[in-house]
């Protein structure tokens, strides 16, 4: 009896271990293939020259620059609103139906399919506000998409600041806003920073929301203002892997690897920072 119970456990754990391998091994394989196939394509020339010859030659400089512009504008738009919402939830909101609704709205914003954001952004920013396809329209769309990421991360960062800090400030006569602005916020900066990097990494990898709001198939020059279209890395990869016949595989793999490094790299960077900050925290 005792033996069979232990045997069952040994078998069950072995099965669980094997199944977990089914999740992890493909991840390792995918990264291995991307690196081994894409490595040869990555050169200084590839990263710093513009695509040419129907996207079959040249490098990916303009899509990289376009992506940087786009995510830069996105975070500028998303951070203030996201941060203020987080301050509301962490410092001002009282438990009740409104707060409950706000939380439900955030969960749902995070669950709306990215293509629906694209549709919405196209309809509102490009057509209704007559911005046409441009960096501003694209980054406003992406800002809505990463808003939940920013809010959740910032709220978490604000709420771990010890309650005694707030009480001490209040006892010294500070108002609610003074306490929040001078005491709570500075202590939450590391968490807000890592959350923002996470948001940027998310925005950099998204394709569906930018399909009709900003992405250009090809542009002979870099974007000149936020009212210009832009070539963007994920859209570029989509084009050269599905729409351009006979695109050389090394260009495809090189582009995929670059995008992976940017998106996953920032994600990992954010995790490392988080661990660092947690270790060095004063409380």
């Amino acid at each position, binding site marked *: 009896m005792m033996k069979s119970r232990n045997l069952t456990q040994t078998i069950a754990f072995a099965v669980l271990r094997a199944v977990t391998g089914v999740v992890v091994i493909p991840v390792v394989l995918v990264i291995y293939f991307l690196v081994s196939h894409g490595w040869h394509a990555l050169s200084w020339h590839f990263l710093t020259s513009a695509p040419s010859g129907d996207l079959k030659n040249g490098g990916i400089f303009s899509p990289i620059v376009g992506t940087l512009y786009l995510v830069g504008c996105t975070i500028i738009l998303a951070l203030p609103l996201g941060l*203020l919402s987080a301050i*509301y939830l962490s410092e001002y909101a009282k438990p009740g139906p409104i707060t409950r609704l706000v939380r439900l709205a955030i969960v749902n*914003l995070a669950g709306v399919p990215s293509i629906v954001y694209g549709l919405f952004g196209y309809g509102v920013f490009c057509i209704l506000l007559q911005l046409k396809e441009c960096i501003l329209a694209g980054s406003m769309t992406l800002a809505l998409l990463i808003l939940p990421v920013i809010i959740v991360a910032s709220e978490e960062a604000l709420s771990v600041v010890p309650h005694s800090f707030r009480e001490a400030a209040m006892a010294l006569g500070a108002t609610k*806003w003074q306490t929040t602005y001078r005491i709570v916020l500075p202590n939450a900066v590391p968490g807000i920073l890592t959350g923002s990097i996470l948001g940027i990494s998310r925005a950099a*990898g998204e394709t569906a929301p930018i399909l009709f709001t900003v992405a250009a198939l090809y542009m002979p020059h870099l974007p000149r203002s936020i009212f210009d279209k832009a070539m963007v890395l994920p859209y570029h990869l989509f084009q050269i892997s599905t729409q351009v016949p006979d695109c050389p595989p090394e260009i495809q793999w090189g582009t995929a690897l670059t995008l992976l490094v940017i998106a996953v790299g920032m*994600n990992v960077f954010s995790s490392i920072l988080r661990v660092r900050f947690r270790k060095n925290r004063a409380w």
Partner: protein
Amino acid sequence: MRMRERIGTMNTKQLSRAGEFIIEKGIICCGVATIAIVLFIFIFLLNDALPIFKTNTLWQLISGRDWYPVPDEVFGMLPLILGSALVTVGAIVIGVPIAVASAIFIGEVATPRVRELLKPAVEVLAAIPSVVIGFIGLALLAPLLQKTMNLNTGQCALTGAIMLAFMSMPTIITISEDALHAVPQDYKAAAYALGATRWQTIIGVLVPAARSGILAGIMLGIGRAVGETMTVLMVTGNAAVMPTNIQSILAPVRTLTATIAAEMGETDRYGAHYPALFMVGAILFVITFTINLVADLALRQNRK
């Protein structure tokens, strides 16, 4: 003099009180803005979809078996709905057992050192952009399936389902693991005290106690799979044909999301195709909203 000073300080005090009031109201507005955004997205989608009802009823749209937007303006969404359903069900059948088992392993069985290796791998999987996963599916999995299963094309529903299974796994694993972690330690201690093995404790006590959280994770994983666009657009072959039986999993399909992505760029703003695609978007919104609502309720249940 003293009086003037007092008045001065009173003014700044009153001023700061007014400022405080404005700031507080501003922050509340920003907090409530998220509700407004969700409502606005839905109302806007519906508003732009309305013109489609001049020529079609809702029932015609949902049950129509033919999607020929150009040039016939026939908008039967059943093939798209079934396409999304087929790929999503496939992804869930493949992904859920694997994800839940991994969550149990990572959360309850693995040693801390192994756990510290596995968790980042799951995080990396979540961070890979969908267009890169689509590219991998196109470059590696589709040719592999075509060869091994002797198909006409590797770009079929099954390829999409496998890729989506992997994309929904991080969500399911993370939330299930949290749910297992949230089970009170007393439960475990009580089970051990009764002589249960670790495995008996996991399967007999922890998993049942965490079931609503695990269910919420599965729901959110389904939501992720239904809403995923680029990967399915790239690997499912994009043929708007009706999946008729189980064999259809080996044939090309087209999902709701991929239809919007593939067609929106070329529509006429004032034609019937534009509102039809917004209707597809509104349907997607309702589906994911419902899924998220149910998941949220389940999570609240779990916390209690």
